[in-house]
């Protein structure tokens, strides 16, 4: 039953030196033949091939290594291959996109593992675990994807959905009822509805491609006086996801930021160079300056304080500067392991406070949870668009179908065939606009058209 081919970035949506794109399913080597520069290869089992991935125009997208795992020697037990490309989200996404364009579909959360299980690559005792992963991952992935889309484009998506439903209902009402003065939709009206859908899709696509990196998350700064534990925390945070990370050149001066993911959600850590330098550099007094900078640029400020000693003037200075932006601040009370009791945490005027120890790891999970919660809340109402490759593919396919639909409406094609195209459009956009069922369509039909002799 698994003869569709699935693909995903196996290394996750983070910056990394090498990104691996895993593709699995019978027939997957046909895809590889189409996109790999070396055409005369037989792709033997357990071999690694060096070459280039080409786009539809034959231009080189990346220099890669392709590893072949033929059934049953692969992770999933099916024919599969992995493309190791040069990391960088843009590049790995571009490669994934090409794989998707050539007949694979985006894997659902946990799907490789599911296939592995169904194909007998895992033992029985793992079933439960696999099931857990799937239900947990999919609910959260869905949740996040929906929040992103709904938050940013609730209007657009609502309108697209409405237009498609109406278009379908109008088409269907004219098929399923005759002899009636039912619908006064002119051809122009139908064309303009399809055009509208097209425009909306392309505006989402534009927004998603404009400016920021697709996977920019909220920006986090870490501030605090020298020796409070900034660089320790930085290492810990990066360690949370074990996902470091190439440097992206910053926009100002020599500020450097890094991409990380926490619980699968992307974040950008600002001015990591500044933190790292501080431990052995003389420019310690940048503390205040960095704080001012952080207030300007970041969405979340992690303000560190040292539980093992009393707050000093430097701490109060930082607190004062942050107070106006307290909703963005998480006070991190570090060195919990060395807590001396001198420091009363009530003194700190921030609502969000988390006690941690970079040494023992205490409280780091709580911090991760807090960041996740803020991010999900933020995703729902920010205007940063973050879409994954499959969503972009969907948008593009949807736009192409709109074009076909326009032509066919213009050409007065049989409504039963038009309907195939509209439902095709719905199938494609399913993930973005939500499932549309026959019942939804009938609802709209009966609401909008006075049917029934």
């Amino acid at each position, binding site marked *: 039953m698994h003869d569709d081919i699935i693909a995903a970035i196996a290394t996750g949506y983070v910056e990394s030196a090498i990104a691996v794109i895993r593709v699995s399913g019978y027939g997957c080597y046909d895809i590889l033949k189409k996109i790999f520069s070396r055409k005369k290869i037989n792709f033997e089992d357990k071999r690694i091939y060096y070459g280039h991935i080409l786009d539809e125009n034959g231009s080189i997208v990346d220099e890669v290594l392709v590893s072949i795992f033929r059934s049953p020697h692969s992770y999933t037990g099916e024919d599969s291959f992995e493309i190791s490309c040069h990391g960088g989200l843009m590049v790995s996404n571009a490669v994934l996109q090409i794989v998707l364009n050539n007949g694979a579909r985006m894997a*659902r959360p946990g799907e490789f593992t599911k296939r592995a299980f169904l194909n007998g690559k895992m033992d029985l005792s793992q079933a439960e675990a696999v099931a857990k992963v799937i239900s947990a991952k999919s609910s959260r992935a869905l949740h996040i994807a929906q929040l992103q889309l709904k938050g940013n484009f609730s209007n657009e998506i609502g309108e697209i959905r409405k237009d498609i439903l109406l278009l379908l209902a109008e088409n269907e009402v004219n098929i399923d009822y005759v002899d009636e003065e039912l619908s006064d939709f002119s051809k122009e009206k139908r064309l303009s509805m399809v055009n509208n859908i097209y425009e909306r899709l392309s505006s989402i696509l534009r927004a998603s491609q404009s400016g920021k990196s697709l996977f920019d998350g909220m920006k986090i700064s870490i501030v605090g006086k020298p020796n409070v534990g900034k660089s320790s925390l930085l290492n810990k945070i990066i360690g949370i996801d074990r996902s470091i990370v190439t440097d992206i050149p910053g926009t100002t001066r020599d500020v450097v930021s890094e991409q990380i993911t926490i619980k699968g959600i992307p974040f950008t850590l600002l001015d990591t160079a500044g933190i790292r330098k501080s431990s052995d550099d003389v420019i310690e007094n940048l503390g205040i300056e960095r704080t001012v900078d952080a207030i300007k640029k970041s969405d979340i400020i992690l303000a560190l304080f040292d539980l093992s000693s009393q707050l000093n003037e430097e701490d109060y200075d930082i607190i004062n500067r942050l107070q106006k932006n307290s909703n963005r601040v998480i006070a991190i009370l570090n060195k919990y392991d060395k807590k001396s009791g001198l420091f009363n945490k009530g003194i700190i005027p921030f609502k969000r406070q988390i006690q941690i120890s970079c040494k023992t790891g205490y409280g780091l999970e709580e911090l991760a949870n807090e960041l996740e919660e803020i991010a999900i809340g933020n995703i729902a109402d920010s205007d940063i668009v973050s879409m994954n490759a499959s969503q972009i593919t969907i948008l593009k396919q949807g736009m192409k179908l709109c074009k076909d639909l326009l032509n066919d409406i213009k050409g007065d094609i049989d409504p039963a065939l038009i309907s195939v195209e509209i439902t095709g459009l719905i199938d494609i956009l399913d993930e973005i606009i939500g499932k549309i069922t026959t019942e939804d369509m009938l609802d709209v039909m009966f609401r909008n058209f006075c049917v029934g002799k």
Partner: protein
Amino acid sequence: MFYPKRYDVVVIGGGHAGCEASLIAARMGMKTLLITINLDSIGAMSCNPAIGGLAKGHLVKEVDMLGGEMARNIDETGLQFKILNKSKGPAVWSSRAQADMPAYRLRMKHIMEHQDNLDMKQATVDEILEENGKVVGVKTNIGNEYLCSAVVVTTGTFMKGKVFIGLNEYSAGRAWEPPSIKLSDSLRSLGLRIGRLKTGTTPRLDARTINFNALEPQFGDENPAPFSFKTENFNRPNIPCYLAYTNEKTHNIILSNLDQSPLYSGMVSSLGPRYCPSIEDKVVRFYDKPRHQIFLEPQDEGSTEIYADGLHTSLGYEVQLAFLRSIKGLEDVEIMRPGYAIDYDFVDPTQLKHSLETKKIHGLFLAGQINGTSGYEEAAAQGIIAGINAALYIQDRDPLILRRDEAYTGVLIDDLVTKGTKEPYRMFTSRAEYRLLLREDNTQLRLAKKAYDLSLIDKTDFERIEETEQKIEESVYKLKNTFVFPTAAFNQKLKELGTEIIKTKTDLAKLLRRVEIQYDTLKKLIPDLGELNSFIKQEVEIQIKYEGYFKLQYQQIEKFRKYESLIIPKNFDYNKVGGLSNEVRGKLMDIRPESIGQAMRMPGVTPAAVSLLLIYMKRDERKIKSSA
């Protein structure tokens, strides 16, 4: 008393479902008894005097292919015949006929009376007799008990039926017939969930008081085709319907009398069909529509009683008369029978298997409006399936289950048992996802094999159909493999026929795909192409012109079948499946889908839930294997 003769199948109710169910069971050699409240109303049409229509024509033809009577019956008693949607593609062409209602009913009764193995008795069934989860007989209102192995219940709108005309309300099965009061309690006590639905009908008018000169006649097709593949010497009249329109005055009368409507005054709260709203509903909801169409349809050949299609209403008698008389052509009209609404008990169809047998009681089958549908054709389609499966049940054979990719009947039943219904369910072509392939014209090709395997059609018929199919294939092959070349002479001919010239070697199929080219056009180009009869010609044209779309649907169907073939074990334990939400788990345990495919169609069942099912199914399988 125990009636001494023992039956194989007892069918309760002589409506459209009951007629097909009892006829086919008898035709399959079962000793069959039909019990109905009134033998004179066998095959009666409760509502409009018509058979077929959009998506319904498909059902009629499927019933015909499965050995049913509806198509034959309308072919003998129709007053006009028409193909609807002729301006659209062949997938949605649908046959419809006006029926001579009394003639339809009488012929049906006659056929039943002459059917071997079929007895008919007039009585009301009050109780289903059951032992150990199996049906064993039925008991009538005068205490007769008939023993049997299978029961098909097809009681239509009769269970606890209540009729509303204005603010008057009385118990009835339909306007002028007694209801069936006790049967639904018996079903409930067998553990079935019962709900309530509502429907309505229009006033019947006296033809002598209508000014037909003021109205526009509408005839059927000139040379119509019959419904049944068995009908020969088809020769029926072409009696017109008439088109009339409501106007603002009509609407005002209705709006100012809404307090007279049981629907608007709150007397009736059950849900009626949205696809067939009352005139009150139309006027209220589409208040900016200046007029609504009405079709005045003859109820019989003499045309005294006229059915006013489009005017379902339950307003009071006086209001009905007043708004009718505001319509041009009806200024002096007399009502013969008023319109009314009826609400009635139905059985939630998700309690049925695809065979239409109840999951709870073995040998108990339900068909027709009792399952929440509406319409004669929907009833007949279920009736024939239930009748066939009752016979197969007794013979201990696998049930006949038509899939969604095989027949509208399959779509209808799968929708009912998988999703249930909140309003009377009517067939629409848009419910059939493989609509392009489920056409009226290819009904024979779709179903002949299945029908023949169950001996529902004759050998000669089957062989003839097979031969036709082969001929179509050959012709398509030939067109794809006959080439023409861009010679000056050939291109000249193309120009004369008003179509583009060709620039390269081209096969005839490619030419046939052009909108302006038909098979006959090709014959003009290539005289020795071969003569085809009109049916084969049409099939060849459809297959070639729509090939691309058909391919797409075949791909979808392949996927669909794969999921259908993943059977969920009957005793699968959903409680074990970790990660399912309680809601989804509850639904799955209630419906107990037969396959993964069916589970995927259930509202609310997500892809993740389906993955979980698959994993646990696999786990069980392996456990069994490793312990064996």
